[in-house]
């Protein structure tokens, strides 16, 4: 049934192509020499036994040439890739490629040939050029290989919305996004969306609950990505770390309390995360009135290229080293602050992880790993209601809770590998670690140190919201570690690298991933 449906979509697209203006057909012929089908073999890490890899999977997507031997595609097309090939439309031989840069937050990646001359040697290869943010109601064409087909397909649609919205590849990350009323199907991902011969976006996700609703990454986000990698590494979008109450100043008495004119604009700051670059300069209770001179409306939106979008759009598009200029009201007094854009401090994030392995440590058969959206998704599609309440609550709210706000990691006991040394411990699987030997643990590194540096006869492990601690005989635990790890094939016994160690970076020099 699925196969039949795919055919229907391809046929429909061909029909539309046949009806297109001659100029459009000419454009496709000119453009197709820059379009690549990307095929990958991916292997993801296991979340419950994080030293393992899951069985390989095969998938495909689309990419397009942007010059200098580079192909632009979606990060999700090549995430966790162990083998990548690219095949220009109309050519016969795929070329082995590697991921040169990948930005999981903005769902973009740059590929290069494994052999230095590989892609550049392709005949009549022309770099596609980028246009600007499209206008609402303007027509666009999406080019790619939907449903894994070998024939290039073009679908036409209309720009229906420009907003600051969720990029699902990264979990909760939000960026500028354009909605089009044409279908974007699996395999379209990474393909160019054009107006005339200019790329105005990259096709990347769809809304499955509605017909013919596709989303594209607009050029401001693409340009930011390309600028970001200009120094040879990708640093990523900045985190604003702000929780605001949009709409509160609609209330005239609230506006009067803050000394503001009724219906004047602005949003109130409820919380500032300690890990964010804003934390030193913006405070809870501040009223944000403008960013970079753009007035922030009562709804939290600013004018951007003629559209009203969330004020965070302006902050989000900045590069490391830039500044965000805020006008705000504090304690009844207007002031301005220049927030330096810099990487966030390490912290628990609701983003999905695309590291080679999740951070973990195995001690005495106890598998500790970090709470992540990926880990929650092991509860299935309805993880948001079926995962343990504590885990799903902390994932979203740890930043507000005194016990966890400063944590680099929220550590979960993912599994017990049964052994005599841990046979009688309470069943605390899926509980959240609080402390070891009553010393609070805020990171996986601190956990490793607590286990390795402790000297008492016993190791005691305390969990959040539970009064029944785990007690282990330290000398027995140490003695059994190697045996347990060998029995269960735990190798290595720890992974302490962060999200910068990406499985997709095979064959590269290790630089440039986010």
């Amino acid at each position, binding site marked *: 049934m699925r196969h039949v449906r795919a055919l229907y979509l391809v046929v429909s697209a061909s029909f539309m192509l046949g009806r297109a203006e001659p100029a459009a057909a000419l454009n496709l012929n000119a453009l197709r020499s820059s379009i690549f089908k990307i095929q990958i073999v991916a292997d993801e890490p296991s979340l419950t036994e994080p030293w393992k890899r899951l069985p390989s999977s095969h998938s495909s997507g689309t990419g397009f040439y942007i010059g200098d031997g580079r192909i632009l595609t979606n990060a999700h097309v090549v995430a966790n890739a162990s083998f990548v090939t690219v095949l220009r439309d109309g050519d016969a031989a795929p070329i082995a490629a590697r991921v040169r840069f990948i930005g999981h937050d903005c769902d973009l990646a740059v590929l290069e040939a494994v052999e230095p001359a590989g892609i550049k040697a392709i005949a009549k290869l022309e770099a596609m050029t980028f246009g600007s943010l499209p206008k609402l109601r303007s027509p666009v064409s999406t080019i790619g290989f939907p449903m894994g087909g070998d024939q290039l397909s073009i679908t036409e649609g209309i720009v229906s919305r420009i907003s600051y919205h969720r990029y699902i590849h990264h979990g909760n990350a939000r960026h500028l996004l354009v909605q089009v009323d044409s279908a974007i199907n699996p395999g379209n991902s990474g393909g160019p969306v054009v107006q005339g011969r200019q790329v105005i976006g990259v096709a990347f996700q769809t809304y499955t609950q509605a017909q013919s609703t596709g989303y594209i990454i607009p050029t401001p986000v693409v340009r930011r990505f390309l600028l970001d990698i200009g120094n040879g590494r990708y640093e990523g979008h900045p985190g604003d770390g702000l*929780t605001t*109450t949009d*709409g*509160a*100043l*609609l*209330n*005239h*008495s*609230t506006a*009067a*309390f*803050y000394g503001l004119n009724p219906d004047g604009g602005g949003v*109130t700051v*409820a*919380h500032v995360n300690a890990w964010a670059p804003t934390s030193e300069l913006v405070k*809870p*209770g501040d009223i944000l009135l403008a960013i970079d001179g753009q007035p922030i409306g*009562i709804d939290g939106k600013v004018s951007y290229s003629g559209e009203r979008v969330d004020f965070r759009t302006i902050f989000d598009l900045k590069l490391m080293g830039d500044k965000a200029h805020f006008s705000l009201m504090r304690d009844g007094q207007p002031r301005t602050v220049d927030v330096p854009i810099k990487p966030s401090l390490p912290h628990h994030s609701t983003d999905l992880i695309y590291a080679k392995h999740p951070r973990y440590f195995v001690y005495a058969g106890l598998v500790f790993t970090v709470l992540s959206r990926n880990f929650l998704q092991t509860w299935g599609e309805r993880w948001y*209601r*079926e995962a343990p*309440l*504590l885990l*799903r*609550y902390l994932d*979203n*709210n740890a930043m*507000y*809770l005194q016990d966890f706000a400063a944590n680099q990691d929220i550590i979960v006991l993912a599994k017990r590998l049964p052994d005599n040394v841990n046979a*009688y*411990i*309470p069943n605390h699987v899926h509980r959240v670690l609080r402390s070891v030997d009553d010393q609070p643990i805020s990171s996986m590194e601190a956990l490793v140190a607590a286990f390795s540096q402790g000297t008492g*006869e*016993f190791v*005691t492990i305390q969990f*959040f*919201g539970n*009064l*029944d*601690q*785990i*007690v*282990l*005989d330290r000398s027995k635990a140490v003695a059994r570690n190697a045996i347990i790890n060998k029995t269960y094939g735990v190798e290595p016994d720890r992974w302490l690298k962060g999200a910068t160690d990406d499985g997709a970076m095979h064959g590269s020099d290790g630089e440039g991933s986010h």
Partner: protein
Amino acid sequence: MRIRLAVCLLLALLYQPAALAASAERYEEQVIRVHATKREIDRSSPWQSEDTVQQDFLGVVLPSGAVLTTANAVTNAIYVELQRFGTTARGEAVVAFVDYEVNLALLKPTNAALLSGTKAVTLGDDLAMDDSVGIYKARDAYHLSRLSGSLQEVAVISAATSSYGLISYAIKVQQNGLGWSEPLFLQGKLIGLSSGQDQNFLQAVPIAVIRHFLNDHHDAGYRGFPAMGVQLEPLLSPDTRRLIGAKNIAGGVRVAEVQANSPFTALLRTNDVVVAMGNVALSEEGLVNHATWGKIHLKYLLNQHYGGDELKLKVVRQGTELTVQARLQRFDSNRVPVVSYRYEGPEPHLIFGGLVFQELSQDYLKQWGKDWREVGPSDLLFTMNFANKVTAQKSTRVIFLTRVLADPFNRGYTELRNRLVDTVNGHKITSLAGLREALDKPLQLQGQAYARIKFAPEGSEVILGLSGLEAAQARMARTYEIPTTGSFYQIPGARP
């Protein structure tokens, strides 16, 4: 033809056990139909009620002339009727006594003649495992149907109407639709009342609990079922036993926490090992031996006590044996900040400028349906599960904003709902009374009075000027049809 039918009936009677035929007839004189009209508070609009519903339960006649049924039958009841089998006459009854903690209630007809001709039940003894019992449900206005079941388990679980840990029978049955206070009989004697059904298992209040309840009620001053106010954990790990000095003792459970209101507060410490309760030894799993049922949770021992009883514990503290003794307190499910149940009286609430504030309760969360523990608002569920410790102050409650009655006065905040209140005008809020007091102390700024309400955990705020509050609330009372007295906050000078 008539003769053939009569012969068949005669044969059928002959094939029935004589004792059963006789006892079924007798039970219809001992069992009473209980018709309850219920009206639950609308938890989202606490100034009004849900639609009334009628539910039918059963009860049994006691020698005192009262009718014993489960508290399930009278939760949120506004009118109760009794009806004898074999008559069409119904009569009003009053709830003479109810203990929601153990799910039992006593009813009395307003006209004692209603029960004339009935017989009082005889109380039986504890069931043994696999005992076959008769479960009696109403077939029609004249007859009871006998269903059979067998005892599969006796376990300590939360009572159907409270959070009290109470022994309960699990009776294996083949039929559905039970759990409406059907009486359970064995050899002509009452041995339990059904309290609910989970697939093929009928839960029932055991006769031991019924006896305890009736004895207690018979005495002057009901003392109720007690608790220790101490969290005890199994002590299986040899390493834990060594750590806390329990290596050389048999059995015992670890004191994990002594609650703020416990009578043992000054007597027990974390990591003490309780090895015996009274004279009964506790296993390392926290179980005790029952002569008939085998291993059962130690809370069973507490079920046998009354509030006010002295309880002696044998304790080992870091290898040293000691005995402690304290007077037990009656258990109260609502002695926690998140209210467990509220079956009677109005739902406490306060409306300020259209912001509806209530005490967080399990009843509120149960509005999300049978999966409420999964799909309810996670802030509220987290609070119930992880921030619901007994505090020294009995009146401590979790106060939250249920919703906002949209009005120009609260423009900008109309979409707020299910938000935990942290502070009001800088004062920590732990009760509705405290909320009212905090609102009485508004912030003054440039000659204007303001209320500043801060929510947890994220710290967002509502700031409303008090100017125009009374007019706005009068408007809301009309728009939303809310009684003008009792629900709305009134500034001190305007209070009657």
